[in-house]
Every structure is written in C-alpha cells, then in structure tokens.
C-alpha cells in the first residue's frame, strides 16, 4: 500500500492497537495485527542459518537442506526458494522472481515454506 513494507507494518501495528484499545474491537485489532505481521514478513530478508547447507544431490536428483542431525529432501519449489534466500532478497522479491519464472502466483507457497523452515530453526529472517 505504502510501497514500503516496514512502514506499512508499523502503521498497521498501531492501527491494530487502536482498534483494540480505543474502539474495543478485539477481532478487528487482531486481524490488523496479523496483517501487520504478514506485511513485515514480506519485507524480511531470509537466509539459511550458518550451519545449514543447501546441496544438489545427483543421486536423488533433488535439493537437500542439510543440518547437524538429518536433513530435508526438498521439492523443486522448495529448492528454488532456498536458492534465492541470500539475505539480500526480501520474501516479496523471492515470490516475485519465482512467480515470473513459473508464471503463477507463489506468494502463499513462499510464505508457508519459509515460515516452516524458520520454525525448524533452519532459516533466519532479517528485517529491512
């Protein structure tokens, strides 16, 4: 909306509190906060944690994400997303780049995938 995800997330965060505290509308406040989180997430610049390694495995013909104990066998999209997680590109950049490559909207796939890896401690999300 504002062209700057970080400012937009901050404003949405304030709006959420205003809806909660001033208007007494918890539901609308919570929904706005969730929107703020999603917008902030778009601005994050994900990268692999230092001990995770992304490898192409010629035996299984898949990308594999390796960590101290075990690893994740990735599908094509997962491998493509992680290959772009360089700490420079934002989540929005990655979604746009892959969307253009596959000629379809992948925003939700990218967010879900990166959230899952962040919760496993394999991806770090850095702000702007």
């Amino acid at each position, binding site marked *: 909306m504002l062209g700057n995800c970080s400012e937009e997330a901050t404003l949405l965060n304030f709006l959420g509190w205003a809806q909660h505290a001033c208007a007494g509308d918890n539901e609308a406040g919570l929904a706005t906060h969730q929107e703020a989180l999603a917008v902030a997430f778009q601005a994050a610049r994900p990268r692999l944690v230092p001990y995770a390694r992304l*490898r192409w495995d010629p*035996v299984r013909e898949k990308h*594999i994400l*390796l960590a*101290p*104990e*075990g690893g994740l066998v990735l599908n094509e999209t997962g491998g493509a997303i992680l290959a772009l997680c360089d700490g420079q590109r934002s989540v929005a950049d990655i979604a746009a780049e892959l969307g253009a490559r596959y000629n379809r909207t992948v925003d939700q796939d990218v967010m879900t995938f990166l959230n899952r890896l962040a919760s496993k401690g394999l991806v770090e999300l850095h702000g702007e």
Partner: protein
Amino acid sequence: MASNRPFGLLAELTYRCPLHCPYCSNPLNLASYGDELTLDEWTRVLTEARDLGVLQLHLSGGEPLQRRDLLSIVARAHELGLYTNLITSALSLTPAKAERLKTAGLDHVQISIQAADATLSDRIAGTPSYHQKIAAARAVKALGFPLTLNVVLHRHNIDQIAQILALAEEVEAERVELANTQYYGWALHNRAALLPTWDQLQRAEPVVRAAQARLKGRMQIIYVVPDYYSRYPKPCMGGWGRQQLTVAPNGDVLPCPVAGQIAGLSIENVRQRSLTWIWDDSPAFNRFRGVDWMPEPCRSCPRQSVDFGGCRCQAFLLTGDAAATDPVCYLSPHHAVVEDAVRAVNHDAGSLQPELVYRGFKTLATAGRGNPRS
C-alpha cells in the same frame, strides 16, 4: 538394488580414545579393530558413500582427533560435498587445530562432557578432561562453528540435569543432547551401576521440559529417555539398512555401530567389497530389512512401520536371538529381562552400587566379540 539410499555415514575412524567412559557403546574387544583403514582407504569409502547417496558424515570413534590425518579426511569429505560433523571428546582440540578443521571445511562440532562439574566429569571420563573440554567448546564457538553439547546420562549424573543445561546455555551451544545411556558394549557391562532409578527420571523430566519451553528458538534440547523405561522400543537407526550405515575403524561395514556384536551375522569389509555391494546385496544388510523377518508380536503389529521392531542388537544381547522383538517392548515375550533389570535398580538402589568398569584396551583381557550379559 535396494530402494532406499543411505543418508548418513558414521565413520568410526579409530577406537583409540583418551577417555575411559564406562557407558561407552564401543565393543569390549577394542584391540580387534587395531588395523585401521588408511587415508586412501577412507577416501575411497567416502567417495563410494557419496555415490551411494550419503550426504551426512559423522566422524567419530573412539576419538577421531587421535587420527593424524583427520584434517585430510575432513577436506576430502568437504570436496565431495558431504556435511561433516565431528563427534569428539575435545580433549586435544586446541584453538589452532579447530581453526585448521574449519578451513578444511568442517561444518559442525559435537563435544561430549560427562557432567556439569570437573570432579564428577573427570571421574566418569576416567581422566582429567573437563576444563579442556569447556575451553575447547568456547574456542569452537569463537570460530563460528555451530556446537552441539552431548551428555550421556546415567545414575551418576542425571540429578545434575539443571546444571548441565545451564552449562550448555553458558557456552552458547546451539543444541544440547541429553541422551540416556544405551546399553551396549561397555555400558551393558556396567548396566547395574548406570541405569537410573524411576525417581531420578521423574525429577529430570520436568526440568528438561521447562528448559525446552524457556529456550525455544535459542537452544535446541534433545532429551532421550532410557528405552528400558519405555513402553515401546526405539526406531533403531530408522530401520535396519534403511537410512544409515557405520564403517568401523578396520573397515567393517555395519547397519548400526553395535551390529558387530551380533553373533552369526556375516560382516563385510570395505577392503574386500564395494560399499554399494555391501549396502545393496550383502546378507547382513538384507537380514532385517523390511518386515518379512519379523516374528510375532511385531508381524501383526501396527507399530512395525513406526519402530521397525526396535533394536536388533539389543534383541540379540538380551535374548540371544537377533530376530526377536526388542525386549524393551511390553509386548515382547522376553520383556521380563528388561523388567528385572529395572526392578533390581529401583528396589536395591541404596545397597546395589557395583563398581564401574572403565573402558580400556586391556581392561577386560578375556572379553570376546560376544555377549557380556550376566
């Protein structure tokens, strides 16, 4: 060809070790493995392992730092694209050595400590080592390595679990493994002196859960309860010949690190056979693959795809039959052997304090390949 490709290789580079931990799961006949693979032989094994699908290399032993060519082994593994994990007592891991390992491409370091204070840790290790280990852990972190702290738990240190967690937090380990002793090798020999009591486990559990909740996102805490107290067996190695393989110091290739203790299993060696043949076609790796070998109660059990019948080595060591259901399972016809061991520890905890037998090359002059069960 086997449909599953192995994911991890445990490379036991040597059984030499400066520590003498009585909970060690290495075989009792350590001296039989003295004819160690050379650097060239390990290079061939790693290359074959990579072609077979191995992605993760755990460098272990014994103490892998006892190998003078460890740096070269790490460098070769790194060139092959393997994720390399050094599992070490860290006794001789100086900052300079750690830095050379980092340059060679080592990805991760796992350091064992035996307890949360020097007196107990050194007593369990059988040698002064605690202060060097902590110094090594700090040096490893300073180099930017991810660090796992590993503590094998048993009756003598499980009451220190809060202090152990505090220590792990203090050295800023990314992960801490609190793994109760598994009763193989030296540990089985010392079982009566090592198995914790039910009360100890009841006290430890909430401490671990609270720390896991508090440190979520900062430090991963892996807690493994002793399977003797479980209702069902562990899914040992993720199934026989399914995900992992072990190469012993002399080149023996094993479906699990303890499988060399199973009498009658014809163990193949990388000096005679290719790793691919051993994985795909050897009788040892096919012996307990899938579910066809299973007896009842596993054969008709819905959990057979969860725990794969438990551990073949434990079945052999406790019942004499490697094809039996793991006696840890409450449905096993042999479950009484586990119940008896647990009962003895809990009912005689005050009086029953057998001496610990420390791991060593000459400690048990008469120890054979077989079974130390009493």
